[in-house]
């Protein structure tokens, strides 16, 4: 039962670095989206619920 677990997938340093950069980019994009929705809500006020077709 004490048998050591295999290490599974081990990322290289390059892979870790690229993965971290991609994660930061996705976080920034989501942040921009949140700020955008917040800003437009403030700009439109109550009119935010009026969406002309």
């Amino acid at each position, binding site marked *: 039962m004490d048998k050591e677990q295999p290490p599974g*997938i081990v*990322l290289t340093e390059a*892979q870790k670095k*690229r*993965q971290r950069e*991609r994660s930061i980019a996705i976080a920034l994009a989501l942040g921009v989206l949140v700020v955008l929705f917040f*800003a437009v809500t403030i700009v439109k006020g109550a009119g935010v619920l009026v*969406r002309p*077709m």
Partner: protein
Amino acid sequence: MSIVENHALALAPRISEASVADYIALLKPRVMSLVIFTALVGLMIAPGHFHPVLAFTSILCIAVGAGASGALNMWYDADIDAVMSRTVNRPIPAGRVTPQEALAFGLTLSFFSVMTLGILVNWLAGGLLAFTIFFYAVIYTMWLKRHTAQNIVIGGAAGALPPVVAWAAATGSLSAEPILLFLIIFFWTPPHFWALALFRTDDYARANVPMLPVVAGADATRLQILLYTVVLVAIAVAPWPLGYFDAVYGLSSLALGGGMLVLAVQVYRNREGAAALRSARQLFGFSILYLFALYAILLLEVVVAAAARLFW
């Protein structure tokens, strides 16, 4: 190696080493910059007040939508890109991004750009953006590009739509001016891309893309370039006598159109050797300047008029 081991290797997850720059390359930034510029002009010449935050949102969504189209195009055209010298280093043929990753990226950005524009600005603009992405990715990339020499003529509609989307975002409606902006880019596309195809014919032939010089020959292409340039110049000047744009635009359009015509005639006349290649390259280069200058004049006029109202 046993069959089981082989199977295990095939199932092993591929760990991506794609950089952020590779994903940015999937958006075709150079095409995107022209889309942003033409959309900005469509937005600026639209009548009425449009809040800067909504204007920024509209341009951002149009830019991301254009980028999404680029990613979907690269996903579908990876086989063509791999055999053309101009595109062999793109992220998918170079092996840095898998086709599945590019597809997921393109679909995600398409969804978010259309929904954001629809929800935050208006659904006419959102719908037009969705149509633009669909037209470029499905009608042009999947259907026309590999099947007809008229691929870039009809497909050019996708590249001509951004100023229309921007106008719709600003006004919630459509009118003659955005249609004129559309027509200018629509008729600009064939001479621009056929000039490129004249000095990249081997590339397109190797990739089995039925561009006009590959299918109909260089001379037929030269004639088509000249004819489309005549129509383009007439359409680009027309908004002046029709009263939509003023004399500054009209005279500039005449002068720039004269340049396009001279170069198109040179392409038509120089049919052999280095002179032929040089003429095609000159027309290709000048056509970019031509479109940029036409739209820049419209933008400049709006800025000058706004400044005049502010200071006098």
